[in-house]
């Protein structure tokens, strides 16, 4: 029986009187996609930030590969975030250097982990641009000039270039047009399968959760009200809030 890649227990977080996390526990195994769904204020984004070490909880434990994430200090967490982990932000501007060329954006993580050959870095960047369906001829253009969908795909390429084992995604399709969302979700789906990534994705989009996730956690007001295998949670919701969420999704 293998161990979870990331394991969190008893996470508590409060902002004044607002409960962001209430004794939350979550595990994620290698190669597994876990979606955290919920509406605004559910605590899902707080959970993601705590799990990825971007925010400290009031109490609780997060273990990655047996290491204590909360206790390892910022240097350790930054190192993880540069190598084993990735983070795809909702707004690509938060995850990209807008004034640096696409190739430079992708190459940065390679250079940070010791890559010293300009030609190879450029080759790797071209490969990844093609993989995320951006024309490699645009390698020297800054993402300032890209569409929102392209910026997001560039962010994904930048994150995946060092083959992280665990990727956190915060509403990666938020703010994108529907057709663009479909392309992005399909891309994420394929990359996850090809690379065997573990992904923790926060989304309010139930359809995206159904498409991408093996397991779903439903959050409401800081509490995980239901969790399980995706099709079961969405087809046979038990908790009243989950039933409400599922019933509220409009079908095309």
């Amino acid at each position, binding site marked *: 029986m293998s161990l979870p890649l990331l394991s969190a227990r008893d996470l508590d977080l409060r902002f004044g009187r607002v409960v962001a996390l209430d004794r939350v526990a979550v595990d994620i195994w290698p190669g597994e996609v876990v979606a955290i769904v919920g509406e605004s204020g559910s605590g899902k984004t707080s959970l993601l930030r705590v799990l990825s070490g971007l925010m400290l909880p009031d109490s609780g434990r997060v273990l990655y590969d047996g290491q204590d994430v909360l206790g390892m200090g910022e240097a350790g967490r930054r190192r993880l975030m540069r190598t084993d982990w990735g983070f795809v932000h909702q707004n690509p501007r938060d995850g990209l250097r807008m004034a*640096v060329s696409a190739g430079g954006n992708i190459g*940065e993580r390679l250079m940070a982990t010791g890559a010293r050959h*300009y030609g190879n870095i450029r080759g790797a960047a071209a490969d990844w641009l093609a993989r995320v369906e951006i024309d490699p001829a645009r390698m020297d253009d800054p993402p300032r000039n890209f569409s929102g969908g392209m910026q997001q795909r560039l962010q994904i390429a930048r994150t995946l270039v060092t083959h992280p084992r665990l990727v956190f995604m915060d509403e990666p399709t938020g703010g994108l047009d529907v057709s663009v969302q479909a392309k992005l979700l399909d891309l994420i789906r394929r990359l996850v399968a090809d690379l065997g990534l573990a992904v923790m994705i926060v989304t309010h989009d139930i359809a995206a959760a159904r498409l991408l996730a093996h397991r779903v956690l439903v959050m409401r007001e800081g509490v995980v009200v239901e969790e399980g295998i995706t099709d079961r949670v969405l087809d046979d919701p038990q908790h009243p809030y989950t039933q409400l969420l599922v019933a509220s999704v409009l079908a095309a």
Partner: protein
Amino acid sequence: MHEPGYNFAYLDESTKRMIRRAILKAVAIPGHQVPFGAREMPLPYGWGTGGIQVTAAVIGPTDVLKVIDQGADDTTNAVSIRRFFARTAGVATTERTADATIIQTRHRIPERPLTEDQILVYQVPIPEPLSRLEPRIAETRRLHSMADYGLMHVKLYEDITKHGHIATAYAYPVIVQSRYLMCPSPIPAFDNPKMHMMPALQLFGAGREKRIYAVPPWTEVRSLDFDDHPFRPIRAPHACALCGSTESYLDEVITDDQGGRMYVCSDTDYCNERQALAGGAT
């Protein structure tokens, strides 16, 4: 004997002790910038106050001091600073690199290789190598503590993308002992290789920014580059008009209004020595 009314080397003993502590810490962490309580000096910021405070803290009565500015001993600033120490410390001064025990320099490293008995003190305007890329000091401190130099890597990558080569001619960034990114002060990139495994102690003082940093003797100093775009020291492809050197860093001097120019060694002592040798040979 120094002029009465001044403490030896101008600074009071407590200040010298504070600066020495900062220097020791800097030497213990090569390339790391140490904040220090810089004092008001009798010359404004931008004229070498940092270098002067470092020199004042390490100089002793038996030291022999050389001061150069862009390689020359005879510019106004070099002359002023040399005279300052002559008056306040009573030390011997010299224009010959070979005879100096302490060399304070603005923007050049002497051509003549230095020895274990010498100290090189650099005047530094902007100590932070990331300053143009990240204006927030708190953030650059965090980046240095994490050895998170992605900003600089990206800048070099972009240079090659845009210009085909790294477009930095002076203050070319270096990595010291594979750990700290350091600004070597605005010396020409040509001088960078001299810093690597130098037998002399290298001290850097920035008065306005109030930072001291150091490279101990025999320390690895590597200029940032790519394997397929290696660092190359660049000099004007001429020989010195005075001494004929094809290896020293040259200054370009305009000689007349018709655009006539000549190239001469920037390091005046080096040039004079070579001329003396050539003259003596005849």
